């Protein structure tokens, strides 16, 4: 049963990518809706199956690692697969309504969209270091393709900047994999993890290089310059996908590698370095988000800031008691899920607002709260989760991270979390303030179809509700990031 589910999960997105490439936009849209439903069903079934039976290893092609490629299907991977299904379906549906079918290049959105989805699933489930590299490349190129859809000069510039940064990151990662393979002779993550005990200093250098590469791909502070133009220029559903999921893929790989190899190699310095970079990202990202004149750039810079929180996992899971590390992992998992939901909701809502206000600037939002309450409401709810205000998932994540940082004695991360929350509130309320401005004349706005506004609202409500059901979600993760997993 599980092998059928896995096969379906891997096959569907790739098949639909091929199918959609051959169809025109409207036909592809119809096919994609079916595909999304199928993929959602598969992901849900797999999630339910793992929730009962627990995780397992899936040997592709029948060959066991280290020879073949093994997929690690544990609680965390399956949760992220379901998250991808959720956010992907929402962005797909929204894109179907949002993109203008008459443009010749729009038809290529669907194949790239499905390829991106396939890449994401490949990364969540991967258990093999080289396979992760190929998965990341798949995601990068699909994302660059989506960003550059339409081929306008600014889109090209942003795409190029993105492509170069991502490629450098991938090669750095590959260099790390090469060094690790040279030392341990195995490519599977679990195999390398076991061998890490007797590692030489080269392995810690390899780890450093890999984390540097992945940090650049995840737009951590020093390497973040490519993200705002890319996510700002792209169409709303594309930026939602990029900010919500693509950026998380690189972080997910880094986290997997760190938790396998980190404790063994004395890489505390690397952890602290990433923590400091994360804090700098939080401050710089929020500060820039406050000053951006354009709405989508504000949301893009907010992504830079929120990614900073994720990288607090590294210092908090190294050289600390097991319980605290577990708490930090759960906190970061919740932060990833709630940020994915909230940020995609915010980007979709921002897309709707820009569509109806007919201008990208924040000041143009005056009077929106009177005539476009629904879009602003979903934007607002997403903002609540970004600020980490109760009862949202963001708050639950902030709470767990606060507890982890205080329990581990590294109290300064708690300061970063609190200040970050306030800065996030600053730029979210900047948008509220602009939209609450009363405007004299009658309704100047174009009203998008109601269904366009429902999608971000659903996502925002999920992000908000996540806080209330945090415990069940975390319990399904079991021991996140690997723990004993029974093989089929």
């Amino acid at each position, binding site marked *: 049963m599980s092998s059928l589910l896995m096969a379906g999960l891997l096959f569907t997105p790739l098949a639909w990518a091929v199918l959609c490439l051959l169809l025109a936009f409207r036909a592809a849209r119809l096919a994609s809706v079916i595909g999304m439903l199928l993929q959602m069903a598969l992901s849900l079934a797999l999630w339910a199956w793992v929730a009962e039976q627990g995780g397992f290893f899936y040997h592709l092609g029948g060959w066991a690692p280290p020879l073949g490629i093994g997929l690690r299907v544990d609680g965390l991977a399956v949760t992220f697969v379901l998250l991808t299904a959720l956010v992907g379906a929402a962005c797909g549906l929204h894109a179907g309504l949002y993109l203008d079918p008459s443009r010749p290049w729009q038809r290529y959105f669907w194949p790239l969209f499905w390829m991106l989805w396939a890449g994401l699933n490949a990364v969540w489930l991967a258990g093999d270091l080289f396979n992760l590299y190929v998965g990341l*490349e798949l995601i990068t190129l699909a994302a660059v393709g989506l960003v550059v859809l339409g081929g306008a000069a600014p889109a090209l510039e942003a795409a*190029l900047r993105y492509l170069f940064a991502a490629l*450098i990151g991938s090669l750095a990662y*590959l260099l790390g994999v090469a060094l690790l*393979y040279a030392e341990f002779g195995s490519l599977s993550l679990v195999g390398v993890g076991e061998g890490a005990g007797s590692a030489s200093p080269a392995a810690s250098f390899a780890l450093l290089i890999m984390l540097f590469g992945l940090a650049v791909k995840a737009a951590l502070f020093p390497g973040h*310059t490519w993200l*705002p*133009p890319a996510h*700002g220029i792209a169409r709303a559903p594309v930026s939602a996908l990029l900010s919500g999921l693509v950026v998380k893929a690189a972080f997910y790989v880094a986290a997997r590698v760190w938790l396998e190899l980190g404790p063994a190699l004395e890489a505390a310095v690397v952890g602290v370095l990433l923590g400091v970079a994360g804090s700098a990202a939080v401050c710089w990202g929020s500060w820039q988000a406050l000053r951006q004149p354009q709405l989508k750039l504000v949301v893009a810079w907010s992504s830079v800031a929120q990614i900073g929180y994720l990288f607090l996992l590294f210092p908090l899971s190294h050289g600390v008691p097991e319980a605290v590390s577990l708490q930090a992992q759960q906190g970061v998992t919740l932060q990833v899920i709630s940020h994915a939901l909230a940020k995609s909701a915010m980007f979709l809502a921002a897309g709707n607002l820009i569509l109806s206000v007919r201008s990208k600037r924040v000041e143009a939002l005056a009077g929106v709260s009177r005539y476009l309450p629904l879009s602003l409401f979903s934007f607002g709810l997403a903002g609540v989760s970004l600020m980490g205000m109760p009862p949202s998932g963001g708050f639950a994540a902030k709470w767990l991270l606060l507890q982890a940082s205080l329990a581990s004695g590294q109290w300064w991360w708690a300061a970063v979390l609190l200040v970050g929350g306030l800065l996030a509130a600053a730029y979210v309320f900047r948008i509220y303030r602009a939209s609450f401005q009363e405007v004299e004349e009658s309704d100047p706005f174009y009203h998008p179809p109601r269904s366009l506004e429902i999608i971000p609202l659903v996502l925002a409500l999920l992000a908000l509700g996540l806080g209330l059901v945090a415990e069940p979600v975390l319990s399904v993760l079991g021991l996140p990031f690997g723990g004993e997993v029974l093989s089929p």
Partner: protein
Amino acid sequence: MTSALLYVLAGALLCGGGLAGCLLVRHLLRRLLAFNLLGSGVFLLLVGLPAHRHGSDPVTHALVLTGIVVAVAATALALVLIRRYFHLTGRVSLPTGRQEDR
């Protein structure tokens, strides 16, 4: 001092030079070339190190083959973007001006 060590050494130096090229050069095509240098350096290391320790290892060959294909795909895509960018804006390097979203 097997011949593989020579490749490993060359690979390491290529990596250094490639990375420097990628980061410092502004011209897009040259950066792309530097990227390919870096890629080749990594592939050399990937094959050279195991070869040095215990003879030729087919797995690394397969990995390198896959790596090369991916590199080719990325380079081709980059080229298309660069040519289109040049076609539209006539610039050969990305604007580095003090954009406020630096």
